[in-house]
């Protein structure tokens, strides 16, 4: 029987009531009395030297409060990078300055050159048009391999080349790797591109900043997944403000997908300008601005080689990747192609020797950073594509080849620095084979062929590493932040509970799922528990939401804090019941003395905590506890996905006929929300596989700069999904045994779709090794007729 409340229940998402009835409170809904509006003048040239900026005409335009250029920010910090990667020679990555407004050069289309603050947005735009900017155009650096060549045009003149770092994992095994490949019975090689994506959350970025002269305090409302991280970075590295004078609020946020993790120049600008203008300042990105200023995702060019012995055991893996970082280092960009990508190359397989090389490149494009999955989709795509190709080359069943090489003993130390605590890859694959009715595929293929369509089946596995941790290890790897989280459980006198959490909910359903945990632990109704998040003046210092970490990390802090609350409440109950604390049991919201019928209700104990007339003298009044939680390890969700497609041989159009996901997320708090997270992730993965393509022309102009050319998946592009998460190996090191589910769909689905299309094409008697994503009708047709 499914539970109807608490852990394991599909409680309906309480936050959806306000979202679906237009009662949400998004940053753009916030208007401060007297606010002025910002318009950024952005470069329409990808690479050039600014020879002159004349703002005098603009300054005299109606309504203009102030015009800012890069000069106004000399002496102010630039946008920081939160992860220092050490290259293969032991040197730190090259870290160029990233000013709030361009200083001397523009480096991508959309790079902000100047900003106008005016009484109205239209006045700000009018004035921006009156700013005269002279730019000496330089050749745009776009191709990563060309950018790495000696003598390539430098994007940052103060760096020695365009390579941010040349990073290696497993280099010490060089001889061993060479030997494995030399002795291999079979080697499969694949060149592939992981296409650049634009996250495109429904809500564009917005910042509203105000400054109080009276108290010297700032408030920044901003579209962020992690308000404390923004406050720390902006105060400590950019503006040099004391943190206690700055409040950062991320109210309802309309989708993040990674791109709202980062600290952006616009929000720092608004905070700076609010004081400089002595007026509240508001900026709302247009969709066009989002396309040229939100950090983008993926953009890897890779070559992967898989070595197998005569029995088809994987004996070695070697990959070389060029990772595009764009024109500047975004906040966590350097970590994505390295510690979130190279370390995942073992996948679900016991390949003994793995070597990863990543060259991270600066180009004249919008910065690239984490996007749903962040590194792990790129790793999964490489690995699962090369395995599929190997199976085809060897003429073996792709599922059998995977099963044969699965890791089956846990904990398992991979050759690429991770320790998987638990998993059951064969068990999960069993669930997939049943849920996807793989036995019935041949009949479905015959039916499709009778209708003139080619049908293909693609299967793949994935492993991801969520809840990146622990802080001491990531610190050694270059992280400039800790990766714990925090929660405060504040019990009110009448027994209701406010939980202040460091995680931020922007679609994940924390406001529903987190109370399920606390209510379950105490045995009270979920409606008595409320989550407070997104405001640095209300919540403890938490690191926010990304990397599928919220429940595993912040949820664990919440459990620890709730345990402290329960321990203290038991002391009070023991006093009221005149019993020993060790004899007190808590069940269904009642404290009772073991083996007796004496009990006292939760509400009576909480009231006593705040009206402590009859109270144990050695205990402090009140009932509020905080816990910080730093995980011992990553969590390792894993799964197996199956996709069936039909390809129209006349047009190359791909339609997804069936999509099945079998995931092992460990224990599950709210199965309905988990289904929804997987659905959303698969939707984005299918978007990457079939539709989405962020493309630049040879001059660095963004070709896909609007929804007219950037294809977002629509409802009718997507199938109904079958999602099975009954394969559950609980995480061994966090109190809930949870692993995280937010990114799985986006990680696991692209190779399933691509494998399916290639299976369809090869079934049609053609030999097509690979098609790069997105597999648009045009690309599929060209591959069929190439």
């Amino acid at each position, binding site marked *: 029987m499914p539970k109807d409340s608490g852990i394991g229940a599909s409680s309906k998402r309480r936050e959806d009531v306000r979202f679906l009835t237009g009662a949400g409170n998004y940053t753009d809904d916030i208007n401060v009395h007297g606010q002025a509006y910002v318009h950024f003048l952005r470069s329409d040239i990808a690479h050039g030297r600014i020879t002159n900026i004349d703002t005098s005409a603009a300054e005299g335009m109606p309504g203009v409060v102030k015009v800012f250029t890069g000069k106004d920010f000399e002496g102010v910090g630039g946008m920081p990078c939160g992860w220092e990667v050490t290259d293969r020679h032991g040197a730190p990555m090259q870290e160029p300055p990233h000013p709030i407004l361009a200083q001397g050069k523009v480096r991508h289309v959309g790079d902000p050159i100047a900003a106008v603050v005016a009484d109205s947005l239209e006045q700000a735009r009018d004035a921006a048009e009156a700013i005269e900017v002279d730019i000496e155009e330089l050749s745009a650096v776009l191709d990563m391999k060309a950018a790495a060549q000696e003598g390539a045009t430098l994007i940052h003149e103060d760096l020695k080349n365009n390579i941010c770092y040349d990073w290696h994992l497993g280099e010490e095994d060089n001889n061993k790797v060479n030997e494995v490949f030399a002795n291999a019975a079979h080697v499969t090689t694949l060149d592939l591109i992981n296409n650049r994506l634009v996250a495109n959350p429904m809500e564009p970025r917005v910042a509203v900043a105000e400054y109080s002269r009276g108290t010297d305090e700032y408030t920044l409302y901003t579209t962020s997944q992690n308000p404390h991280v923004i406050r720390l970075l902006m105060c400590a590295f950019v503006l040099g403000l004391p943190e206690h004078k700055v409040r950062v609020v991320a109210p309802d946020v309309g989708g993040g997908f990674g791109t709202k993790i980062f600290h952006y120049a616009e929000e720092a600008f608004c905070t700076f300008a609010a004081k400089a203008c002595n007026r509240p300042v508001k900026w709302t990105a247009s969709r066009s601005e989002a396309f040229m200023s939100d950090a983008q995702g993926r953009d890897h060019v890779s070559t992967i080689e898989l070595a197998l012995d005569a029995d088809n055991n994987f004996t070695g893996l070697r990959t070389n990747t060029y990772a595009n970082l764009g024109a500047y280092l975004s906040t966590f960009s350097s970590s994505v192609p390295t510690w979130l990508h190279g370390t995942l190359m073992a996948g679900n397989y016991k390949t003994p020797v793995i070597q990863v090389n990543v060259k991270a490149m600066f180009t004249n494009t919008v910065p690239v950073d984490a996007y749903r999955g962040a590194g792990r989709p790129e790793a999964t795509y490489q690995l699962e594509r090369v395995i599929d190709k190997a199976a085809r080359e060897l003429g073996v069943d792709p599922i059998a080849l995977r099963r044969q090489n699965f890791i089956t003993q846990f904990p398992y130390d991979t050759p690429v620095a991770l320790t998987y605590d638990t998993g059951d890859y064969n068990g999960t694959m069993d669930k997939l084979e049943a849920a996807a009715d793989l036995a019935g595929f041949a009949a479905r293929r015959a039916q499709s062929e009778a209708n003139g369509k080619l049908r293909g089946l693609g299967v793949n596995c994935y492993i991801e590493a969520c809840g990146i941790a622990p802080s001491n290890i990531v610190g050694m790897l270059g992280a400039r932040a800790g990766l714990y989280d925090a929660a405060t459980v504040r019990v009110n006198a009448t027994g209701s509970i406010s939980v202040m959490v460091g995680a931020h909910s922007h679609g994940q359903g924390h406001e529903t799922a987190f109370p399920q945990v606390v209510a379950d632990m105490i045995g009270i109704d979920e409606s008595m528990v409320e989550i407070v998040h997104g405001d640095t003046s209300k919540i403890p210092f938490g690191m926010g939401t990304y990397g599928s970490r919220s429940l595993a990390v912040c949820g664990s802090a919440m459990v620890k804090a709730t345990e402290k609350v329960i321990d203290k409440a038991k002391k009070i109950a023991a006093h009221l019941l005149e019993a020993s604390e060790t004899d007190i049991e808590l069940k269904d919201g009642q404290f009772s003395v073991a083996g007796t019928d004496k009990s006292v209700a939760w509400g009576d104990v909480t009231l006593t905590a705040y009206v402590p007339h009859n109270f144990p003298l050695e205990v402090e009044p009140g009932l509020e506890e905080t816990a910080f939680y730093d995980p011992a390890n990553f969590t390792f969700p894993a799964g197996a996905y199956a996709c069936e497609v039909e390809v129209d041989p006349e*047009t*190359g*159009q791909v339609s997804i006929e069936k999509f099945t996901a079998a995931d092992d997320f460990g224990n599950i708090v709210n199965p309905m929300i988990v289904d929804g997270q997987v659905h959303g992730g698969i939707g984005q993965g299918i978007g990457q596989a079939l539709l989405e393509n962020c493309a630049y022309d040879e001059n660095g102009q963004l*070709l896909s700069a609007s929804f*007219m050319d950037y*294809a977002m998946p629509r409802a009718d592009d997507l199938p109904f999904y079958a999602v099975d998460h009954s394969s559950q190996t609980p995480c061994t090191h966090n109190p809930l045994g949870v692993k995280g589910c937010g990114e799985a769909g986006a990680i696991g689905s692209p190779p399933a779709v691509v494998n399916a299309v290639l299976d369809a094409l090869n079934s049609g008697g053609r030999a097509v090794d690979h098609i790069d994503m997105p597999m648009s009708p*045009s690309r599929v047709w*060209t591959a069929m007729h190439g």
Partner: protein
Amino acid sequence: MYNFEFEKPSTIADAVAALGGEDAQALGGGQTLIPTLKQRLAAPSKLVSVSGIAEMQGVCVEDDGSVAVGGATTHARVAADAARSYPALAALAGQIGDPAVRNRGTIGGSVANNDPAACYPAGVLGSGATIVTNTRQMAADDFFQGMFTTALDEGEIITSIRFPVPQAASYQKFLQPASRFALVGVYLARFAGGVRVAVTGASEDGVFRWSEAEEALNKDFRTDALMGLRINPMNMIGDLHGSKEYRAHLVSVMTKRAVESCA
């Protein structure tokens, strides 16, 4: 957007008068023009909305059996009201954009704009329709003059479009995946006097008639008649969404499907 004057007259005569000023521009449903203004890519001094003109609204069947559509009629209304009198045209209208676009966008606005990937130009040219303006009547063959270019004079308003109703017709649209405009759209209409095949989305010269296909189908209205017929890719559009060769190929496939649908 920049500031502009706005007028919403209730008669064609008032609209023509209002459009007499310098840089005045007619506004239909605004599905292209308003985004253009918001991007500050156009700066008309005055917008003259034609959506308040009653005589430019609606679909009716004329005495000669042709279907007349008022220039300010929305796509949604054509999709609903022409469903019996000219089903293929109604089906075309029902495939334009999304419900929001179909409830605002108008036939006159679309045809006057002549976007090379819009659906209506194919329907109008494929049907051999007559474009009626405040001053004259023009055959579709004379009206479309290349990408975003028509025979309309400054200040001239499309008041209605008259469609002769063919024996059979079909619009086959292959979607550009992002915009869902036509990557290639083929409108085929079979009249007693012959077959017309109009192609949108494909050519750098905008909507065009594929005369070789028409000739072949006039001789033999079967898909076999199209075998071996190929459009020269040279003047086709090649972009992010499809090469010239791919578009040329799609013209053949969509034409074949239109024939199958009419058979």
